[in-house]
């Protein structure tokens, strides 16, 4: 059975239909816009993370560092015959040795981490790429194809040619789409790589596109042995690219790996912290901006309920005379806020979901930090929960003050005509 307070609240709601409808509409739009802006900013952020993880892996193991702990001694005195009374171990600035000296041993150690799904040894170097068009800078990445496919999305980034051709061709190469376009290279074309006065000929087996223009403009993948020979790096590696089952544990795993292997280990969050900070700031900024819509509708709600309390003073007095307590009166007005809130949030969720779907279908060409031909959205329940929580906080705060005011009315004052 419906409680008497809820029943009264429902009827009171109809007393100021237009104002209540406006408040409801404000909440619907506030919640909806909050969801759609969060879906967009999160969507682009997730897409960016997916792109950089699929290209550069979750963790990169680079230069070896030397032990940096040193001991400070003090407290020498005659009493202890000039011997130090205490010593402190402190860390000095690290000294790094470029690259990974023994990639096989380090790979083996890293693979023992439970969260590691793959490790790829990479030898890199800067070269000149010479074609009929001209000469340009390029960055060679020497890889073992199968190892690298396990730590990247290279397999799905091929837009022309095939990995099978690359696998079977000793001088085959994978060329970035922007570089290929700039140098007018097509699958099957030959070109020269020059470094240290030595020139070698390679064949374009496939063209890939990561969507990150900085990569697609310069990177050329060669077989590891070929790269070692070209770059004159017969042993060691420039870095190891590591993939994880749970990418969100990258920071913790990186810290543990540093301790175990004595190399600088950078998780993807540290590598991409600038872009991640930009996305985070955008998301926060849009949340604040859109929340003002909810805030304004909350103010409208407050105004409506405050007016309703003035209009309903006699009803409040008669309810009090019939035995309704101050708590009942508070609840009657809070119920009105809650009813508008529930309606606003549910309709706002529906509106937000529909708007998110609509936005995801808008064609837009994005090139730069990633590649997309439409708005990227992220469907996360947290956005809906956050919108609901913000709306609840605003509406309940807006309802609480008029509700308390209504409850404090003295019925004697109202019937005597001295209330308010």
């Amino acid at each position: 059975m419906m409680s008497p307070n809820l029943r009264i609240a429902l009827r009171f709601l109809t007393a100021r239909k237009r104002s209540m409808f406006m408040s409801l509409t404000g909440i619907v739009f506030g919640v909806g816009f909050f969801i759609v802006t969060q879906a967009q900013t999160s969507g682009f952020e997730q897409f960016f993370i997916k792109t950089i993880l699929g290209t550069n892996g979750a963790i990169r193991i680079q230069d070896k560092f030397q032990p940096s702990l040193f001991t400070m001694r003090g407290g020498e005195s005659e009493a202890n015959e000039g011997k130090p009374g205490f010593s402190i171990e402190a860390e000095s600035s690290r000294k790094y040795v470029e690259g990974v000296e023994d990639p096989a041993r380090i790979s083996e150690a890293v693979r023992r981490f439970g969260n590691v799904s793959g490790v790829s040894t990479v030898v890199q170097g800067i070269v000149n790429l010479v074609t009929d068009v001209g000469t340009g800078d390029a960055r060679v990445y020497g890889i073992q194809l199968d190892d690298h496919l396990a730590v990247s999305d290279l397999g799905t980034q091929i837009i022309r040619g095939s990995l099978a051709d690359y696998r079977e061709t000793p001088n085959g190469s994978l060329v970035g789409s922007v570089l290929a376009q700039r140098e007018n290279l097509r699958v099957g074309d030959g070109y020269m790589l020059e470094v240290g006065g030595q020139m070698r000929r390679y064949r374009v087996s496939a063209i890939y596109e990561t969507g990150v223009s900085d990569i697609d403009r310069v990177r050329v993948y060669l077989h590891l042995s070929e790269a070692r020979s070209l770059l004159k790096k017969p042993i060691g590696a420039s870095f190891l690219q590591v993939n994880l089952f749970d990418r969100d544990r990258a920071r913790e795993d990186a810290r543990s790996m540093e301790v175990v292997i004595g190399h600088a280990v950078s998780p993807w969050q540290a590598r991409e912290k600038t872009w991640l900070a930009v996305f985070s700031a955008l998301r926060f900024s849009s949340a604040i901006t859109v929340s003002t819509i909810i805030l304004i509708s909350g103010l409208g709600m407050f105004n409506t309920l405050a007016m309703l309390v003035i209009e309903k003073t006699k009803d409040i007095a008669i309810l009090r005379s019939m035995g309704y307590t101050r708590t009942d009166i508070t609840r009657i007005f809070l119920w009105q806020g809650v009813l508008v809130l529930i309606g606003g949030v549910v309709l706002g969720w529906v509106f937000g979901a529909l708007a998110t779907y609509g936005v995801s279908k808008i064609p837009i060409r994005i090139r730069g930090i990633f590649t997309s031909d439409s708005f990227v959205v992220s469907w996360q329940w947290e956005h809906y929960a956050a919108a609901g929580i913000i709306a609840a906080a605003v509406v309940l705060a807006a309802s609480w003050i008029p509700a308390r005011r209504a409850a404090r009315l003295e019925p004697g004052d109202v019937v005597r005509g001295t209330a308010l």
Partner: protein
Amino acid sequence: MKTTDTTTTPAAANTGEGAVIRCENLQRFLGKDEGRVQVLRGVTFEAKRGQVCAIVGPSGCGKSTLLYQLGLLDQPDAGSIWIDGELMSNTSDDLRTAARSRHIGFVFQFHFLMLEFSALDNVMMPMRKLGRLGPVEMEARAKLLLDAVGLGQKTHRLGTQLSGGEQQRVAVARALANEPSLILADEPTGNLDAANSTLVFDLLARLAKENNQAVVLVTHNPEIAQRCDVVRAMKDGLFV
């Protein structure tokens, strides 16, 4: 039997035998600072079951203030109030509210119906709060009461769809809803024409008698006052 009592009778008030409501030495100040006025100057009063008591007097003499004190809508500055033998003055707001729900029905000059609700809903409102009856019994009792006040055919009309006299009759039915032992009426006929005044008063008196309830009403209408069992006249915050 009608008695006209124009003097305070402390002996009767102190005994309180059979009194539904009794107050002693009630004092009430209204206003602040220089505007502070003593509206009740030590009023003693009681009403018994089946009695219809009228409180008369000029405007501003404290009649309505006394009624609100008796109805526990307002707290006295001094003095005591008993309802059905239970001391109710200076108790918590929740206790006084609960006592209103169980023991007291109000009829005001301006009906104070809740206009968004039907006549039936208005009468069921106090019953819903008390929760003594189930939904079916509540509706049946509300219909019975509306029938008794001659509105059996208009139970589903909203307050706005009823005439002034009809609204006041709904207010009478609402006051009787929880079978209170005491009905307090503040000029219940003050806003009605002569015919409706007689109708409403007759209803109130008859139903209260039938249910052995006490009625205390404030009125300016001498004809209504004359028909009450007890008439108490007030002047300057005291019974005279």
